[in-house]
């Protein structure tokens, strides 16, 4: 549902029914839930109600994993330096086991 809306911007409910291949009551139920938690915004245009995805509340989830990933990146970058040093030592000592 998110993806269909993300890719296509603002849509009236009938278009979403067509896109999702779901019955209208089902789509309406989903939209209601998504609106309640702020992930979907709605605006009236003439006689139509247009629905739009609001991804902002989900951004912290993305950032959350990214922060953990950054920690591992920094950890592994430090490991890179150590590995370069260990490689240098092996070459220097001419070890060949």
């Amino acid at each position, binding site marked *: 549902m998110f993806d269909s809306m993300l890719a296509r911007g603002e849509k009236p409910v009938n278009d979403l029914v067509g896109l999702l291949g779901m019955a209208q009551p089902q789509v309406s139920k*989903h939209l209601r*839930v*998504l609106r309640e*938690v*702020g*992930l979907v915004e709605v605006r009236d245009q003439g006689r139509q109600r247009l629905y739009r995805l609001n991804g902002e*509340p*989900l*951004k*912290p*989830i993305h*950032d*959350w*994993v990214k*922060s*953990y*990933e950054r*920690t*591992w*990146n*920094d*950890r*592994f*970058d*430090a*490991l*890179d*330096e*150590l*590995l*370069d040093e*260990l*490689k*240098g030592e*092996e*070459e*220097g000592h001419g070890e060949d086991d």
Partner: protein
Amino acid sequence: MVKTTKGTSTGGSAVVTLPSDTEILIRREFDAPRQLIFKAWTTPELVRRWWHANRGTCTTTDIDLRVGGKWRWVMVTDDGFEVAFHGAYREIVPDERLVYTEVYEGAPPAEDGEEAALNTVTLTERDGRTTVTTLVQTRTKAVRDMIINSGMEAGMQDAYDLMEQVAISLA
């Protein structure tokens, strides 16, 4: 001067994914043979030099490298926050595979005492380069989330609760 053979830099290329609600997968390629990576992962003096992630200092890197042997790693961040993990080795295949339990000491202990995650580190070498994958498996989503929160301020829980709420509502 010995010139170090240096291939394509792999700096900053770790990728973290969440294969399921109770798993974390960390993957990264290194320009080094796998025995050096295994050594760097299992030797206290060497762990001390990279595990701090440039965020502080490793104060403890105890390793008893045998099946059933315990390990405990502690670091203190530059702003004084202590992060500690411990566990026990379950499986040791030198230069290839390391399986160990891991408990984040910042987490409240589980009632059944089974709060540990199971980590599987796999080293795969090809043409002198090594891909390291770490699969972290937890028994509950809460423990997994706690591990992800371990290195940072846990300020995103609201958003995660929100996501859960949506998932439940749409089920």
